[in-house]
């Protein structure tokens, strides 16, 4: 796959979503829905399917995705695993928290950082795209902080730009906290930054608190369309292999034997064919996971699936993810949370941020990581009040930094003995 084809592939999903959104409902209905999405609280868990409807949500996801692809193209960045993950993550979270209004100040803040540092924007583009995890901060101050609209919008944009400005150096530094065992490193960084900002805001009587708004029913349309899309990814991967199945097997093996620890770019480790197949397989695994737990295909769940699929180009594969998923499910059986609830299901999907623990230390370690992750993720959200959309990445940072050194010590003592 050459670069032009890679860009076409990256644009395909958001373009299809945009087209679907324009067709599925009258434009007047979608337009009103989009306005509701733009002015929504957007803090965790604000399902845009409930806020704006299917058409508007698809248009929002499509546009957010195309904006991301356009930035990748403008910056002349190679379509590698990390950027596939970033674009799919933006698309996924455009179902519950990111929208065509609130992502811009974060991107602008990162751009300012590169200008001050005298480096090209492309050097911080990845952090900027993932950094839209803090986009709800913009929405909250713009429309829900009890301020007059012009003041709120100015403050929202200003705070958004501020977090975008500080994220690049912090994100790089935070990697050392978990040594790359938490794939959603920006989630951890965003959690720290979000907690810092929210603590300051709360001391000025701004009450930032998470609030759950979800659609009550499952969208069969999404189940079917996404499943078809994942099968298409697999078929496309097989087509790209040009029927050289021995070479495909070798590259698949390289992908599957990777621990997934940062930086595991599957486009480099394998190739485009094996990466697409892995993305399709991980999409089907995630869909099956949701269906087996009888979960609803609502915004956050779709966001979780999209993120897993994106990161199947950058660290996640069935062998390192399934133990973590099993650990979360096992935890829900014995802990106080209902297995079929959206929060548990997304804790499983996003909990695969800990896949490198499984990949490095084995499936039992992955099972334990998933088991503990559920407890941690249910307790850290209060710190940032839902302003950090990658709450599982925040929790994953704590779990990884706690477990990895312990597993490492025992693995090492076994080796030395």
């Amino acid at each position: 796959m050459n670069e032009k084809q890679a860009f076409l592939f990256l644009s395909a999903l958001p373009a299809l979503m945009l087209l679907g959104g324009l067709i599925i409902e009258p434009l007047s209905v979608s337009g009103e829905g989009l306005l509701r999405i733009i002015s929504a609280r957007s803090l965790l868990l604000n399902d845009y399917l409930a806020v704006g409807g299917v058409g508007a949500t698809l248009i929002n996801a499509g546009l957010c995705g195309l904006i991301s692809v356009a930035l990748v193209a403008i910056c002349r960045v190679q379509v590698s695993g990390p950027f596939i993950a970033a674009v799919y993550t933006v698309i996924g979270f455009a179902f519950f928290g990111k929208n065509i209004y609130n992502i811009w100040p974060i991107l602008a803040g990162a751009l300012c950082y590169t200008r001050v540092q005298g480096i090209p924007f492309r050097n911080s583009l990845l952090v900027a795209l993932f950094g839209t995890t803090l986009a709800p901060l913009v929405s909250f101050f713009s429309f829900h902080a009890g301020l007059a609209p012009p003041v709120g919008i100015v403050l929202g944009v200003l705070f958004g730009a501020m977090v975008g400005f500080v994220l690049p150096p912090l994100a790089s530094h935070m990697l050392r906290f978990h040594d790359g065992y938490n794939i959603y490193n920006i989630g951890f960084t965003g959690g720290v930054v979000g907690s810092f900002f929210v603590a300051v805001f709360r001391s000025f009587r701004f009450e930032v608190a998470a609030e759950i708004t979800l659609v009550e029913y499952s969208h069969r349309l999404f189940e079917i369309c996404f499943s078809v899309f994942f099968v298409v990814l697999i078929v496309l991967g097989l087509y790209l292999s040009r029927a050289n199945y021995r070479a495909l097997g070798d590259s698949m093996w390289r992908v599957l034997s990777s621990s997934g620890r940062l930086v595991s770019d599957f486009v480099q480790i394998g190739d485009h064919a094996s990466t697409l197949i892995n993305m399709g397989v991980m999409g089907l695994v995630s869909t099956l996971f949701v269906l087996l737990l009888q979960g609803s295909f609502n915004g956050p769940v779709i966001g979780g699936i999209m993120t897993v699929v994106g990161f199947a180009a950058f660290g996640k594969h069935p062998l390192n993810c399934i133990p973590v998923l099993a650990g979360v499910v096992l935890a829900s059986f014995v802990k106080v949370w209902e297995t079929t609830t959206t929060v548990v299901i997304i804790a499983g999907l996003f909990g695969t941020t800990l896949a490198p623990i499984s990949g490095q230390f084995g499936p039992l370690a992955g099972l334990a990581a998933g088991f503990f992750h559920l407890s941690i993720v249910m307790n850290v959200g209060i710190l940032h009040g839902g302003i950090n959309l990658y709450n599982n990445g925040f929790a994953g940072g704590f779990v990884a930094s706690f477990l990895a050194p312990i597993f490492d010590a025992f693995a090492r003592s076994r080796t030395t003995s």
Partner: protein
Amino acid sequence: MKHEQKKISKIVDEVLTYFLYHFNAESRIEVFPEQGRYRMRFQFSKLDISDQQYEELKAGLVVKRQPELEDYYWQLTGEIEESNEMMLIGMMCDSIELTRNGDSIQLELVRRT
């Protein structure tokens, strides 16, 4: 470029750790600060490396420089003993020459600043 010297020392750390951890190789390292670039030359000898291991090392190491990833991920280099960050090393270097001669490997990395 910021943290340039630290990045060079981390590259050296990562490469040395890799060859010590996996092969316990005899190692000789030279670093040459030159006009607008750093050149690092590694000589590893008495290592028992299979053809497959060598090919895997080569595949991991010989990748295009990617400044869009380097600025973010460079702090991971040299952090873990079971180091597997050869790809990251490749992403941080402009030129990589890897040659094998029996039980010896010579690696020369050039990084423009």
